[in-house]
């Protein structure tokens, strides 16, 4: 019996402290569906949203429910590596398509890679790799590194140093969830490096930036960050972010009509500026749609869908890109900086390409097996 | 003269500036009721607390039943045969009167790491518990939860629990505290009946009870024993009168 509708399960953090990630991504997805007329190859789209409460086993529970109860064709979403780690096995074993709209867990690019898995975001290392490269371009030497003391945090440094050629003035791994950084800041000042590279995501980042600025280091030691500053956190950063640099896969300033339409309609619909998370999530339904159309809505032909999706033949906010053999995007990475707009409020502007068609560095270790 | 069951040598205890026990020598002979009286704050309760192992003395040694128990913990002393009742009633409020006593018996029938057989129906605990409740006159209140016993009854339960530990020496801190004349008389009679089977260290402010029961009386003032002797001797002692009894009681 052919399904008359396509069911997509979307797992993310919707309750509790980190629910902001879920919100931005869900809004992106919903907008995409609007743009698709809420149909894919004539099939109605049914979204099932599942809250993981940022707990792996709860995320796992949600996935189970989607597979068994809702009989979804696609499981998507997921912000955190550890939740992706918890969810992936079940979904892949059930031979359903799994799409990460954020989590860039390296294992999925390498040893755990699977034809059923796609990413509309990136691999954790890629963004810091770009930053490392950028710092080379800027001829920066003697850079200080700060990152969070957990897996993703360490991946970030690995990625950065894979490309960064200059000297390292020192490194700090701070505690996950840390709120006060004066100690680290004093240490950085003492070393007096030429620049600071940091992975300080979300609220930690906001706290760090405020304190960094309060200590007056932002002038003497410029801060080059990844995943710290984005339209999601910009409000919280406020002016403290002005004058900082970061790299991202998303050229938010690009005039690509798809991108423009996305940003405009998004602001229109939700009343706030989309973040890169929204952009990634926006691509997910588009990607699925390409697959569904290829198999003319015969959702039983999962393989057919996948083969089509591998072509990445859909309108992405990042413009044209290709999928690598491990289904991680091969994409450009941009240098972005925070400037004061006309009335002094911070805005993010893309000011150049760091990488063209950048591959992640795990795909060689990926052995696809159906 | 028989070897004393309890002997205390040079016991001393201070709380900050307060000298609660001051180089005290003391003994209880087997089968005797030795009463300790003295003004409020003389250190009687503290004294009992040290013998029963609830408070560590600063100085001195305590011999019980021939051995030095100064270093033993409260539970260990209880097993050695010391039992205490509290001046301020201390019972298991949530349990029934029966359970209260049964628990006390259990404490002295082997270790309690028996995790499988129900204790509530264990006759080796319940039967003696009932028997003891009967003896203190709470036979008909066995199933009542301790919290809802009247003050007087709770005092009786205190004693029952002390007895349940099959002690050689009973340390009774004001057993008749808060009891009406009738109940006091009952309690007095009851304690009288225990005489001989148990040695008793009795703290009491109710002189009728004391003079009725005590073989010997020690008067404590500021942690020091100012006099020890038979009731007659104590009655006659001027210092005691001045410090404690006051006139009318002594003459009575």
């Amino acid at each position, binding site marked *: 019996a052919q399904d008359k509708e396509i069911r997509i399960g979307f797992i993310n953090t*919707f*309750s509790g402290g980190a*629910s902001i990630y*879920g919100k931005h991504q869900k809004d992106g997805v919903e907008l995409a569906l609007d743009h698709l007329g809420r149909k894919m190859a004539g099939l109605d789209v049914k979204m099932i*949203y599942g*809250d993981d409460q940022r*707990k792996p*086993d709860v995320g*796992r*529970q949600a996935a*189970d*429910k989607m*597979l*068994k*109860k809702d009989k979804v064709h696609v499981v998507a979403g997921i912000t955190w*590596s*550890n939740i992706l*780690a*918890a969810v992936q*096995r079940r979904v892949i074993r059930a031979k359903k398509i799994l799409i990460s709209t954020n989590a860039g*867990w390296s*294992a999925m690019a390498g040893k755990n890679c699977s034809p059923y898995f796609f990413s509309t975001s990136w691999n954790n290392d890629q963004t810091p790799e770009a930053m490392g490269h950028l710092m080379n371009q800027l001829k920066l030497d003697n850079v200080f590194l700060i990152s969070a*003391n*957990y*897996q993703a945090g*360490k991946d970030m440094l690995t990625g950065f140093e894979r490309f960064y050629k200059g000297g390292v003035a020192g490194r700090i791994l701070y*505690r*996950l969830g840390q709120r006060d950084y004066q100690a680290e800041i004093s240490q950085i000042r003492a070393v007096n490096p030429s620049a600071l590279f940091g992975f300080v995501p979300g609220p930690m980042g906001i706290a760090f930036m405020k304190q960094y600025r309060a200590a007056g280091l932002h002038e003497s030691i410029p801060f080059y960050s990844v995943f710290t500053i984005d339209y999601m956190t910009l409000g919280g950063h406020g002016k403290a972010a002005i004058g900082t640099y970061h790299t991202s896969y998303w050229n938010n300033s690009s005039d690509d009509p798809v991108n423009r339409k996305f940003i405009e309609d998004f602001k229109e619909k939700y009343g706030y500026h989309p973040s890169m998370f929204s952009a990634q999530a926006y691509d997910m339904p588009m990607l699925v749609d390409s697959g569904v159309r290829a198999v003319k809505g015969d959702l039983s032909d999962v393989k057919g869908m996948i083969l089509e999706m591998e072509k990445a033949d859909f309108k992405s906010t990042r413009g044209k890109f290709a999928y690598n053999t491990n289904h991680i995007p091969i994409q450009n990475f941009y240098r972005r900086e925070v400037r004061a707009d006309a009335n002094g409020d911070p805005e993010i502007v893309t000011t150049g390409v760091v990488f063209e068609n950048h591959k992640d560095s795990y795909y060689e270790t990926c052995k696809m097996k159906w | 003269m028989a070897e004393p069951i309890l002997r205390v040598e040079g016991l001393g205890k201070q709380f900050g500036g307060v000298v609660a026990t001051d180089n005290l020598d003391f003994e209880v002979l087997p089968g005797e009721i030795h009463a300790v009286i003295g003004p409020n704050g003389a250190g009687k309760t503290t004294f009992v607390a040290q013998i029963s192992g*609830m408070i560590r003395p600063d100085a001195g040694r305590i011999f019980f039943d021939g051995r030095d128990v100064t270093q033993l*913990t*409260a*539970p260990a002393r*209880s097993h050695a045969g010391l*039992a*205490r009742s509290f001046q301020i009633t*201390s*019972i*298991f409020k*949530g*349990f029934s009167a029966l*359970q209260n006593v049964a*628990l006390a018996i*259990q*404490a*002295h029938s082997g270790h*309690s*790491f*028996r*995790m*499988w*057989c*129900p*204790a*509530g129906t*264990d006759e080796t*605990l319940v039967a003696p518990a009932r028997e003891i409740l009967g003896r203190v006159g709470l036979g008909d209140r066995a199933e009542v939860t301790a919290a809802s016993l009247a003050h007087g009854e709770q005092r009786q339960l205190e004693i029952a*629990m*002390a007895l*349940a*530990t099959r002690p050689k020496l009973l340390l009774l801190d004001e057993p008749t505290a808060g009891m009406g004349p009738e109940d006091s008389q009952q309690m007095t009679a009851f304690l009288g009946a225990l005489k001989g089977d148990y040695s008793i260290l009795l703290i009491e402010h109710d002189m009728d009870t004391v003079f009725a029961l005590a073989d010997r009386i020690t008067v404590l003032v500021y942690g020091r024993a100012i006099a020890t002797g038979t009731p007659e001797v104590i009655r006659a002692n001027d210092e005691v009168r001045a410090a404690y009894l006051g006139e009318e009681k002594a003459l009575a």
Partner: protein
Amino acid sequence: MLTRVKLICLFLSAAILLAVPPLAQATGEDFYVTLFARIMIFAIAAVSLDLILGFGGMISFGHAAYLGLGAYAVGIFSHYGITDGFLQFGVAILGSAAVALVIGAICLRTRGIYFIMITLALTQMLYFLGISLEEYGGDDGLNTDRSEFVTALDLYDDVTLYYFTFVILVVCVFIMHRLINSRFGMVIRGCRSNEDRMQAIGFPTFRYKLAAFVISGAMCGVSGALLANLTEFVTPEFMHWFRSGEIMIMVLVGGMGSLFGPAFGAAAYLLFEEWVPEIMELVVSGSGQNWQFIFGPLLVILVLFAKQGLWGLIPGGRSNDG
């Protein structure tokens, strides 16, 4: 003792638990097998916590530690390709017991709020330890395989795992039932009521409380091992203090100091978490994510008005029906 009404509730719920898998499969909703397995697993954790919490009056805010330890016992072994269930569960039990012994020995010197906080603190330590264990995935956690006992017992079949869990739950409850009514149980409850007096009548209370603490930890370790099997995944998250809080909630919601209450509490909590958001979605779409907005106040109300928990709400019988 139990009143008739309570007995009926008991048998009903047992019957329901037994009937879940066939019903689920008949209706093609076999997701409920996993859900109820999860419920029973946390029921075990809650029951184990109730021993020290409800009966012993030791408010441990760190019970999640043993959940995590049990889980990691399974996880680490299967990380090295060892999936023998007897070994895994054995280590889960002994490991949790051992850690409980150490933690207990430290914590039981303190009382009241101090006890609450130090149990919390030590569990947080384990949590951070878990995060820093790179070999075992650190904060990414660890994918695990399910345990293998005897070939007849294939835990990869969710239904088998379900009944396996069910049996263990029943065993745990029965053990608890014997325990709290035994002499040992009386001692534990006595300590809750008046520890000084316990010592005066001759109980060296420390060792009994410690024993209870260890037993409780070990039992919770089992539930941890089961959880690892169910989710095929272990993570430091299992040891987060919020998790300890949740287990406490289950106990209280069900009824502290009652034998069956905690199990019902676990069911109530997890079903709430599962269904209320959906119901809210039906009412106002998009509101499901705010279920805690309802749950929080509900919890307060429950604490305020249902002192005996749900089990106590069932008419008749004191809650202390151990």
